[in-house]
């Protein structure tokens, strides 16, 4: 043997982690300051692999930080600023207590402030890193920009958030980076693609907030402090990439006027004009022509050629998508969400205006004859103007998601709208696909929508009998669900395929020959036998995966059944109405 006895917990993972309280003591900070520091520096607790080892044998619930992280915090200049701030607060309180108002003034003037620039650079060494982490920043800033200017947080923060978000929206418009939009019950989701990075953010609907009491606004304010700094730098950089002036200015008729105006104009109204999103921004250097870099053609063979072809097609589709609303003139009624729609329409190349009394920045009047679409969210339009389409706002959103201008008939005011689908869902094989999505896919493939609908109607009527048969089959299947999984799955897969391809193959299912089924069955049996020989661990894993798959299939089936029941109910209603109509 020989040698010193090895002591426990003096090496290995126990020395790599540190509990929160110890970290706090090491940094000599109060808990609130420690949390603030963690938020700003992006330090988060780690879950050790062997918690008991790290916890020195105890199983008490503790949060662990990486010791390296905490050591890294030790040299942070902001920690000193925190301490200065504490001293400042103490002095200020004393001065207040003594009613030394001049001291209070002086102290307030010399309030210690800190900058987060270096932290941004440190946390996001490259610009792409920053873009990747922009989702939360944007959502938070959009939320804060809608807060009332009183109460919950500093007015400057709210104003800054508003300014930064407006700048970002203007950038998206200028770069035509918007890709998807979604009207959810929580708010409006947007997805933009900036420098190849998808950025998703959510904005609340424009209502006043019912401020909850169980939310710590200080935490949110600290996050916002960091996010505003991040967003500011990102905006600067983004504007630079497009050759736009950074504190953004609107493109004016002549620059001199602009300058004079800028002198007299206070910043608030310029921000308002900017936030109207109706005018384009001034550029540092006016580009000679809209030259899009084209993909050079390389001689390629075989697969690479195909790939390139696919890429080119995709690129073309993207270009088309970017110019979706080009040449269209929109007019927004006052009841529709102006900012969201203006943002979307402008970022797809459309022109937009609204009532002059609604908001600053209206460019043309409602009577303008060249208006092509008027967006209305009311059941009745008193005097429709001939030559323009009146559509509900969902048309804009659905068109953007479908990457084509959808037929406007479904979106007329007062009409029962088709369901609004999430553009963020990409159905994999075996997932439930709502029929509207299928229709949309068909439209995108270039099939004429009218035919599809008609054929569907026909097939519906034809398919009724088949459906009944199909019902019987389904029931059988459900009974057999306890039986062998594979067969079940195979059948379900077949079902899915049927669903995806319409309703015709149900017949073939019934006529399956026994002789043809035999090899299939044999194969299944072989598989079952092979599963029998699996080792315990693998079997467990396999069972788990298969359980998940089956659950998925079950859920998809449930949705499909619900839809079917709903459709049948609707059809029955329609028939009844028809009959009543005929009788009348």
């Amino acid at each position, binding site marked *: 043997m020989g040698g010193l006895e090895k002591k426990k917990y003096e090496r290995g993972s126990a020395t790599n982690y540190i509990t929160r309280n110890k970290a706090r003591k090491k940094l000599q900070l109060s808990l609130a300051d420690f949390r603030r520091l963690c*938020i700003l520096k992006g330090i*988060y*607790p*780690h879950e050790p*692999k062997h918690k008991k080892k790290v916890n020195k044998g105890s199983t008490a619930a503790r949060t*662990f930080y990486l010791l*390296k992280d905490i050591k*890294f915090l030790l040299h942070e200049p902001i920690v000193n600023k925190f301490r200065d701030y504490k001293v400042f607060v103490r002095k200020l309180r004393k001065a207040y207590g003594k009613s030394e108002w001049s001291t209070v003034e002086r102290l307030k003037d010399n309030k210690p402030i800190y*900058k987060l*620039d270096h932290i941004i650079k440190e946390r*996001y*060494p*490259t610009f792409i890193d*920053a873009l990747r982490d922009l*989702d*939360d920043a944007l959502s938070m800033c959009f*939320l804060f920009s809608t807060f009332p200017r009183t109460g919950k947080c500093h007015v*400057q923060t709210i104003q800054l958030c508003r300014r930064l978000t407006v700048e970002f929206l203007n950038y998206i418009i200028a770069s035509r980076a918007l890709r998807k939009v979604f*009207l*959810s*019950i*929580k708010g409006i*989701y947007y997805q933009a693609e900036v420098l190849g990075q998808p950025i998703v953010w959510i904005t609340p609907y424009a*209502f006043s*907030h*019912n401020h*909850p009491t169980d939310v710590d606004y200080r*935490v*949110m304010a600290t*996050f916002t402090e960091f996010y505003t*700094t991040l967003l*500011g*730098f990102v905006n*600067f*950089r983004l504007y630079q990439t497009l050759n736009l002036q950074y504190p953004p200015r609107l493109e004016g008729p002549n620059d001199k006027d602009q300058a004079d105006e800028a002198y007299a104009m206070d910043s608030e109204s310029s921000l308002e004009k900017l936030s109207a999103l109706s005018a384009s921004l001034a550029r540092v250097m006016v580009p000679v022509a809209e030259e899009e870099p084209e993909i050079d053609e390389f001689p390629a063979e075989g697969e690479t050629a195909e790939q390139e072809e696919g890429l080119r097609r995709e690129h073309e589709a993207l270009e088309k998508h970017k110019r979706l609303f080009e040449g269209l003139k929109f007019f927004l009624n006052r009841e529709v*969400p102006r900012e969201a729609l203006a943002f979307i329409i402008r970022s797809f190349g459309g022109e937009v205006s609204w009532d002059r009394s609604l908001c600053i920045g209206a460019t043309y009047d409602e009577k303008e004859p060249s208006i092509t679409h008027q967006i209305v*969210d009311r059941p009745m339009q008193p005097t429709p103007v001939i030559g323009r389409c009146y559509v*509900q706002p*969902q048309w804009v959103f659905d068109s953007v998601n479908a990457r084509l201008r959808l037929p406007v008939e479904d979106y007329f005011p007062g009409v029962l*709208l088709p*369901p*609004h*689908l*999430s553009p*963020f869902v990409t159905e994999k094989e075996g997932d439930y696909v709502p029929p509207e999505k299928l229709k949309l896919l068909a439209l995108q493939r270039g099939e004429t929508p009218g035919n599809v609908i008609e054929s569907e109607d026909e097939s519906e009527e034809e398919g009724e009998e088949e459906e009944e048969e199909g019902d019987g089959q389904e029931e059988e299947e459900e009974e057999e669900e306890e039986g062998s999984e594979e067969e079940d799955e195979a059948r379900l897969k077949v079902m899915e395929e049927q669903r995806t391809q319409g309703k015709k193959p149900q017949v073939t299912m019934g006529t399956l020959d026994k002789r043809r089924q035999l090899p299939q069955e*044999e194969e299944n*049996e*072989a598989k*079952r*036998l*092979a599963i*029998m*020989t699996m080792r315990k661990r693998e079997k467990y*894993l*396999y069972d788990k*995966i*298969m359980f998940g798959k089956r659950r998925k299939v079950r859920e998809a089936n449930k*949705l499909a059944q*619900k*839809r079917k029941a709903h459709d049948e109910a609707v059809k029955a209603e329609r028939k009844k109405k028809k009959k009543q109509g005929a009788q009348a």
Partner: protein
Amino acid sequence: MAGARGGRRAGMGARAPAGDRAKAGKRPADQQPELQEAESSEELPLFNCPAPSQSAADSGSDPSESEESVFSGLEDSGSDSSEDDASSTEDGQPRSIPKMTQDKSQAGATLQNTKEASIQSQEPKKEDEYAEDSSDEEDIRNTVGNVPLEWYEDFPHIGYDLDGKRIYKPLRNRDELDHFLDKMDDPDYWRTVQDKMTGQDVRLTDEQVALVHRLQKGQFGDASYDPYEPAVDFFSGNMMIHPVTNRPADKRSFIPSLIEKEKVSRMVHAIKMGWIQPRRPRDLTPQYYDLWAQEDPNAILGRHKMHVPAPKLALPGHAESYNPPPEYLLSEEERLAWEQQEPGERKLNFLPQQFRCLRAVPAYSRFIHERFERCLDLYLCPRQRKMRVNVDPEDLIPKLPKPRDLQPFPTTQSLVYRGHSDLVRCLSVSPSGHWLASGSDDHSVRLWEVNTGRCLKTIPVSGVVKSIAWNPNPAICLVAVAVAESVLLLNPGLGDLSVTSSTDQLLSAFSPPEEPPGQPVEWQEAAAEEQEHGLRLRIHHKKPVKQVAWHGRGDYLASVVAAAEHTQVLMHQRSLRLYHLLRQELTKKLMPNCKWVSSLAVHPQGDNVICGSYDSKLIWFDLDLSTKPYKVLRHHKKALRAVAFHPRYPLFASGSDDGSVIVCHGMVYNDLLQNPLLVPVKVLKGHTMHRDLGVLDVSFHPTQPWLFSSGADGTLRLFT
């Protein structure tokens, strides 16, 4: 406190008249210096006097009248201060004076002292002491001074008077009775106190009693003192025309300060030079610049190796739409279930809703909450990198040779042998493969023709058939049956007549041996009617027999007797033991790693053993490899009852309580380097479950790839 102060003041106020009185009383003292009595009588008015004089000065009313009114019920009417004085002088008792009022008599007393000192120059020291000592303020009728009186306790006297004569204590200590009598007789008893200095009783005057009463009530000692008289402001708030002091103002208050001038000029200079800047509000709007001008992707800090980026929020699905497809809306019961779930358990953290138009969509009430929760997740939630298994489940399934390539093996059920009325425990196939013998719980042994499924013979036996075995020698037609405590040898009389007759001849040669008693078994010949059924011999054991087996050539018969205490137990629960029969010794002990071994089969080549166990495992031993299992197959879901090897084909089968028989391909290679290949090829189902039992025995056909199985449902089945 207030009372004490008041008393003092009153005393001060009364000083002047008392002084007068002292002067007045001086003359009689001069006249009669020795007479102590007279002096004391003079003193009394000394301290009694001030009150009337004061009252006369203050209000002019007689205090004695008021006192009378107070104490009228307690003392005799008409008692007057002058009378009291007179009576006290009559008593001739010196009075003790309360300390409060002593200073009144101070002046007089000092005068007396000086006078006495001049007369009696014996104690000059004492006089000096009196001059400074505070004790001079006290009563000096007793001249012992300021000493504890208990020092005199043992003496008859209590001190000395001014003349140095002893002052004697009263002759007799007054006892309780005296006190009582005094109390009864003396109307002034209540106002009589004992003076400790002189040991005399003192009767308090009315004034003194009144003073005591006032002090007891916490009032001022001096009745005439008014604590609430109107205050007179010395410093009034009014501006007076005259200054408080008469001092003229300094010159420096008229000329500018030089120091200040210097200070100001210095500041002016600093402002001129631009050293002092006017304070301007700091611009708090953040300045942005190109932070990533010099991007350095390699400047990633060390900690970033452990960095776990926060996962992004999940993107919304169709259900979150303001106008979702109808199938995503929750039905009534789903909604109720959603509401009853814990918020953390819910699959969706919102209720899907449908709105007909965009303007009807309300604000989402939990928007701020959700952002806040995201914030909390970002900075409070411990992160860990978790490897997600991303495998195709198909890849997990081991690649086995296809069963089709491993044919022949039994695939379908082709015959069912019905006849037994209870579970069929055991079966055995004749070496030729034409006949099948089965033993059942219905106390019968049946013999079947394999090809047709006909029952040829039914042999009733005396008990449950535990085991049955056909003699493997094709020249002999003999079946061994284990029933209760005996093994029966049957000649079924099937097949070739010559064979059966030769068997009979062989058995008829048997004659009961003259064995010594104490042999474990006893051979008996069957009775005549049993002979008709085919029964030939009966080997009687002392214990129940569980299993019988023939040697490979059919010469020897082995039987297993299952009773724990028996000396010949051959089967063990936990392990398998391999015996070398010729040498009669244990050669190997196999550890099957299972609890209850139920059945066992040996590979025809002899190097491999399979055993089935009640914990639903089939264990394959390769004797060349080790005593540990080569492979454990958990194919069955319930306990295994029987296992069997095929004598020709590389097949083995296992029957289990779950009613299935699994046929496996078990290829054993001659090459020692190649391990046996075990592949399950077929699951044969057919037997129905009966009393939780399924298949009880399995056996292969000796030449064909056929499988027989017997089940708890009373049938035998043939799979081909």
